[in-house]
C-alpha cells in the first residue's frame, strides 16, 4: 500500500470532514459497486488508459468483493451529469470522476445523492461526499526538463498543451525551469489545442512546434500522436501518463507515468471499512503516484544521472523546482531567492516563467 499524504489544500469545503453514515457491515453480503467515468477512450494510451490500469489493479486486489465498471468518452458537461446520476441510480457507492471538467456535474449530482461518495480528479471543489485527488505531475515534468536541457541542440522545447489551467501552467513552468538549470537560454514554445484528446490536432501542433525550431517535445494532452510526429522527424519527445515508447521507440526518451491503483485501493478499502472521509490528496514521486518510465538508451549516462538526481531529489524533498529566484515572462521577480511557491499558490498559478512563449 502506498502512503498518501492528505493536505487541506483549498478552503473550499475542506471543513466538512464528517464521516458519512456508512456501515461497513452493509457490504458484507453483496459486493461494493464502484464506478469510474473517463473523459477519453480507455485506448488513448495516456491519461484515461492510466486510470483504467488503476481500476484494473483495484479490481484484481479486491476480487469478488468489489464490482468496478467504467463509462468512457464522457463529454464534460450535461452528459457527465447524466452518466454520474445513472451510475448513482445503479447502486454504485463510490464514483471516481477522472477529469477536471467533471467538477461541476459532480458537485450537482453529489448534492442529490448524499449517500454516494464521489472522488474528483484534478479539481478544487470538495463537499461532505466529494473528495479530490491529483498527482504532482509537475515533478515528472521537471525530470523531463532536465533531460531536455541536456539533449536539445536548438535550446527550444515544444509543448503541446490542452487548456491554460493551473495544472498545465505549472507543468510548463516546471519543465522550463528544470531545463534552464542546465541551459539558461532554454526556451519553451507552447501550442494550445483546446482538448485533452484529439490525435489529429495534437499531431498538427507537434509539427508546428518542430517547424518553429523545437527539437524536443513535451505534451499535456493524452494521445501518442505528438510522439509519433517526433519519431517521423527523427526528433525527441516525452510520453504522457504512461510509457508510450511502443509508439515511438527512438523518440520516446521517458514518460511521466500516473499510478492511481494504490490510491483507488486505499479509497475503496475506506468505503468498505466505513472510514471514508472527504479530503484533498496531492501526491507525487515520493508516494509513487508519479513515476518515470524507463530511460531511452540513447540518453547518455551523465544525463541519466542528472535526471535521476532530479527525480530522487524531488522524492526525498531536497529539490524543489519552484524555489527562487523565479522571474516571470515580463521580467518581474515572482519568487525571491530562499523561498519557494507553496501549494495554494501553485494550484492557482496563472503566469509563466521567463523563457516560455505561449
Amino acid at each position, binding site marked *: 500500500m502506498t502512503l498518501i499524504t492528505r493536505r487541506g489544500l483549498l478552503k473550499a469545503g475542506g471543513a466538512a470532514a464528517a464521516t458519512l453514515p456508512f456501515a461497513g457491515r452493509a457490504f458484507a453480503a453483496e459486493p461494493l459497486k464502484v464506478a469510474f467515468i473517463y473523459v477519453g*477512450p480507455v485506448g488513448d494510451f495516456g491519461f484515461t488508459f492510466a486510470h483504467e490500469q488503476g481500476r484494473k489493479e483495484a479490481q484484481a486486489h479486491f476480487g469478488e468483493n468489489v464490482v468496478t465498471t467504467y*463509462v468512457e*468518452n464522457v463529454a464534460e458537461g450535461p452528459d457527465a451529469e447524466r452518466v454520474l446520476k*445513472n451510475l448513482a441510480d445503479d447502486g454504485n457507492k463510490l464514483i471516481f470522476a477522472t477529469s477536471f*471538467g467533471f467538477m461541476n456535474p459532480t458537485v450537482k449530482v453529489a448534492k442529490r445523492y448524499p449517500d454516494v461518495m464521489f472522488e474528483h480528479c484534478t479539481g*478544487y471543489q470538495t463537499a461532505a461526499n466529494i473528495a479530490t485527488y491529483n498527482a504532482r505531475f509537475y515533478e515528472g515534468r521537471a525530470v523531463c526538463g532536465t533531460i531536455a536541457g541536456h539533449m536539445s541542440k536548438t535550446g527550444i522545447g515544444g509543448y503541446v498543451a490542452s*487548456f491554460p489551467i*493551473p495544472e498545465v501552467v505549472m507543468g510548463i513552468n516546471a519543465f522550463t525551469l528544470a531545463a534552464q538549470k542546465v541551459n539558461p537560454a532554454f526556451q519553451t514554445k507552447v501550442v494550445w489545442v*483546446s482538448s485533452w484528446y484529439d490525435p489529429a490536432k495534437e499531431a498538427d501542433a507537434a509539427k508546428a512546434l518542430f517547424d518553429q525550431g523545437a527539437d524536443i517535445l513535451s505534451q499535456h494532452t493524452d494521445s501518442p500522436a505528438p510522439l509519433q510526429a517526433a519519431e517521423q522527424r527523427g526528433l525527441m519527445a516525452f510520453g504522457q501518463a504512461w510509457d508510450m515508447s511502443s509508439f515511438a521507440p527512438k523518440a520516446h526518451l521517458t514518460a511521466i507515468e500516473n499510478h492511481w491503483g494504490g490510491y483507488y485501493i486505499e479509497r475503496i478499502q475506506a468505503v468498505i471499512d466505513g472510514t471514508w472521509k472527504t479530503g484533498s490528496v496531492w501526491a507525487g514521486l515520493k508516494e509513487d503516484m508519479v513515476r518515470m518510465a524507463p530511460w531511452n538508451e540513447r540518453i547518455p549516462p551523465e544525463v541519466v544521472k542528472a535526471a535521476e538526481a532530479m527525480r530522487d531529489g524531488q522524492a526525498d524533498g531536497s529539490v524543489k523546482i519552484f524555489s527562487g529566484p523565479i522571474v516571470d515572462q515580463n521580467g518581474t521577480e515572482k519568487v525571491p531567492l530562499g523561498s519557494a511557491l507553496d501549494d495554494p499558490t501553485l494550484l492557482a498559478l496563472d503566469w509563466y516563467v521567463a523563457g516560455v512563449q505561449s
Partner: protein
Amino acid sequence: MLELERRKVPSRTMIWLAPVLAVLATMVVGGLVFSALGYDGFAAVRAIFIDPLITLRKWQDLGLKAAPLVMIATGLAIGFRANVWNIGAEGQYVVGGLAGTGVALATWEMTGWWILPLMCIAGALAGMAWAGIPALLRTRFNVNEILSSLMLTYVAVQLLYYMVNGPWKDPDGFNFPQTRIFTDAQMLPYLSGIGYLNVPLALVISLVVWFLMARTMLGFQIRVVGAAPMAARYGGFSQRRTIWLALLAGGGLAGLAGLFEAAGPFGQMVPAFPTGYGFTAIIVAFLGRLHPLGILAAGIILAVTYVGGEASQSSLGLPSAATGVFQSMMLFFLLAADVLVGWRLRLRRRVTE
C-alpha cells in the same frame, strides 16, 4: 431470383416504412456483429434500444438529449426542403449559447423576469445572424452555403475558446477556462420529472413548424422552391427570399437550442459546450424524413442510442464506440432502405431449360 423494379410512383408507405426497417435492420445486424465480437449482442441491443424506453427514470435523460436535436433538426429540415444546405448548425448553436451567456454575464447579480426572455431573444438572433452570413454570401456572391456555413462552425468554436479563456473567465475560477455559473434568474425553469423547460418547448416548436410547413402559404412556397425551382420561379416565388428564410429559420432555432443548453443543463459556458448536436441533427432531420413529426420520433431514437449506449458500457462492458457503430449503421440502412421508395423488390422465377 430477386430483382429491383422501378415503381411508377414513389411509394408513400415505403417513405415511412424505410426508417422503421432501418432501425430493425440495425438491431438485428448490430446484435449479430457484437455477438461475433464476443459480447452478448442481443443483450446489447436490448440495453441500447429497449431499456431506455421502458425505464421510466431514463425518460428524463431522453428528453434532455432529444430536445436540442429535435429543435436544430426541425430548423434544418426547413432549409433542406428548399434545397438550402445549412451544414453549420453546430456553429449557430454555439453562437446562440454565447449570446445568451453574454446577456447572463451582463445582468450578473440582477434579478427580474425579463432576463431569461432577453437571453432567449439574444440566442435566437445570434444564431440567425451567424446563419445570415452564408445567406448573404449565397444571395450576393453565389457562394456555396455548404462550405461557408460549415467553416463558420470552426470560427464560432474559436470565438467560444477566446471568450472563456479571456474576457468571460470566472474571476474566482483559478484560471480555469469557464464562465461564472448562472444565477436562478438566468436559468431555465426545471420541471421536476420532465427536465428543463426546453424539453416541452422543443415539442411545441416542432408542432408549430409542422403547422407552418403544412398549412400556410409560406410552407408551401418553401416546399415548391425545393421541389421544383423552375415552377416556383414561374409562380413568382422568390428564390432569394427562400434562401434567406431557410437559413434564418435554421440558424434561429439552432441558436435558441444553444441558449437553452447553456441556460439549462450546462448552467454556464465551458469549452466543452459544442458536443456535436448540430451535426447529429442532420442525421435526425433525414431519419425523420424532413417532417417535423418524423423528426420528433427520430430525435428520440437518437437519444435512445446515446442513453442506452452509456448504460451498456457500465452494464455490459461495451466500448463507447458501440454507440457510434449503431448510429452509423442506422443511417447506412436508412440510405439502403430508401431504394425501396422508388423501386420494388420482385421475385422472378428462373426459367429452367
